[in-house]
């Protein structure tokens, strides 16, 4: 089974949901499972486990175990957190789900950077996250994410 890594959360903020955290992971995982992928969630101790994943790997050392996992995986999904920079450093392409951040500024061209329209980007791209509010409607829907995954990875010989 081909492995897929999901890094679903950005840093926890005090008393509020991080505006970068994608709300439709379960839908995506359901679709990926249908396509027979082995799903590995990576994250920290204090993060919630997603439903229907195969393994939740916590606190992996990014110089060793996380790097090895990245090398083994077919593709990865993340929000705009550290993971897409980490994977880009090791030249491993994947899918990044942006919301209020502009991928032109914070993304990398080797990845598939998805968002639900520039109108959702926050005005102060370099401002503090504590000043940005969570908005579920600002995220791209899971169907489009899966379509992009199929186009660029599942049905593609490119990667």
């Amino acid at each position: 089974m081909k492995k897929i890594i999901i890094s679903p959360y950005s840093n926890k903020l005090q008393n509020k949901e991080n505006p970068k955290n994608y709300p439709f992971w379960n839908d995506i995982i359901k679709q990926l499972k249908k396509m027979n992928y082995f799903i590995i969630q990576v994250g920290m101790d204090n993060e919630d486990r997603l439903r229907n994943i195969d393994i939740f790997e916590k606190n992996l050392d990014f110089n060793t175990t996380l790097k090895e996992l990245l090398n083994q995986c077919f593709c990865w999904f993340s929000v705009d957190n550290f993971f897409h920079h980490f994977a880009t450093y090791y030249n491993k392409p994947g899918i990044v789900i942006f919301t209020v951040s502009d991928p032109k500024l914070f993304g990398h061209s080797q990845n598939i950077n998805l968002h639900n329209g520039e109108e959702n980007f926050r005005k102060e791209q370099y401002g503090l996250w504590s000043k940005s509010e969570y908005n579920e409607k600002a995220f791209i829907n899971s169907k489009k994410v899966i379509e992009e995954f199929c186009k660029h990875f599942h049905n593609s010989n490119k990667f």
Partner: protein
Amino acid sequence: MFNYSIIIPTYNHLEDCLKPCINSILKYTDFSNLDIQLIIVSNGSTDGTDDYLDELYQNYKSFLSVIKIDNPIGFPKAINEGLKYAFGKYVILLNNDTELISQFKNKWINTLYRPFVKNSNLGITGCHSLTCPITNEEFILFFCCMIKKEVFDQIGNLNESFSPGYGEDIDFCIRAKNAGFDILNVNSNIHIPKGQNYVIGDFPLNHKGEVTVHELSNWEEIKQKNNELLKKFHGIKNKKGISLKKLMEEKKIVKENTIITQLNSKEVTVGISTKDRYYTTLPLTIQSIINQTVPPRKILIFDDSEDQINLEQVGLFNNLFSVLKSKYIDYEVITGEKKGQIFNHQNCLELAKTEYIWRLDDDNSPEPNVLESLLNEIEKDEKIGAIGSLILDSQLPNNTIPSFASSKIEDIFFGINIQWFIHKDLKIKEVDHLYSSFLYRKKAGFPIGYCLDLSKIGFREETIFTYEMKRNNWKLLVNPNIITWHFRESEGGVRNLDNNLRQKDEALFYQKLTNEWKITPRYLKTFLLYNGIGDHFMFKMILPKIVKKYSNNHKLVIGCCHPKVFSDIEEIELTSIDDLINVYGNSYLEKSCIYTWCKKNNWNDSLLNAMKQFYLGE
């Protein structure tokens, strides 16, 4: 092919000088291999010298050249005439008032030559050297020396401006050194025999000295003129225009050519150079000396103040001086020459009659145990030349030493001295140079002297002074257990005089560092990453370019929140964010924030490109 060409200029003194000189050369030199050439330049002799030389030539024409010049032309010109006929790879200059003494054949030439084999940079060897008081440069006396022919090829012949003679050897040695050649005195066990005015050592040659040019009626004028030339060509490097002869009289020459003065006491003289700090920090400095658990023998205060006053008549100082007297600490207030603190410290170095000198800035206040601790440590090891305490700024937080602080001379441009910080471990550390105030052995400092080429603000003067000690194989130490407080005082002092002078001094220091000491300086490049792991990885993407750009002559230091990101990069040193902020202040956080930079510059491209521009200027 001749290997050696001996050139002897001669003017009269046939019987008392030239004949004994030539006879001794013929006796103790092997000319049979035809690799040694003898050139005698007779100029203006009227005592039968030329007839003697004619006869000599008939007997030794295979290796002897005789040049006759009608008028006396002086030493430099006569040597230069001889050089026209010198074909050896090495040229030996010899005065006619020298005489070789009993030895195996060629020992004198071999002794002069042998060091050239070991040191390819060597340009000149000789059997006597001195430090010129005008230029403060060591030079070989040319009454007997060997000069590699290459040196003449590179820097030219003797400077004939010094005719009839005096100072041409100083000038030539300085020019040779400036061109990268080393000079070396091969003589050992040099001393002045009791009651005599000449120097002898293990080198098998006697030098009568003080004949020929010394007999000229205007000899003093010639010396004066040539001293002026030395000043003109090589800068005024000494303070009082002491004549060489006087220097010889004052100094005692001992083993390994170390020149020292007589010491009367094993105790300590404190040297303070002060300027316009009568009513600010100077009294505090004196008070702190009074409070030392081990008092010094004497305090020398060199006063460079603009409007000097008689300190004895000022109540505050009168009180302090009274306490000094009651504690049997001598003191002397000396009117400075207003040439800056380097001259004052040089004067202190010369005037002090104690084994140790405690150089103390007039805005420094050592804690009571400082002198005792410094003395305890320096007396443990004869090889310790100088030792300093911590020098902590009274108005700044006393931070712990950052991991990247260095006491190596090549790291001087880091601008971070280990004496400025509290040390995590209290071990005494060996360093390459010392800062501000320190205790030193007079015999370690005296042969070097202060660098009088610097401007009156004397930027880097203590670095040069102490590193020269280190170069002379003295150990330099910092004792982090003891503290001297540096009081911030904007009025007075010497360092705030002129930024242009500071830049001039820095340029001179750089020349010394790179050309004379052959040190390749390193610079410090720090990066502060006060952001997330993702930003760290993005920075890591451009790190190879940073390393390529800077690692050649920089130490690269990263202070960051997630050091593990960079743990696999060998070319960088990791430090804490606190260490960087301790050194550069809180504002460094904002200055080094990539997001602040992006915001300020309305950056509308990728963050990766922003980093390339911010960190690499791309």
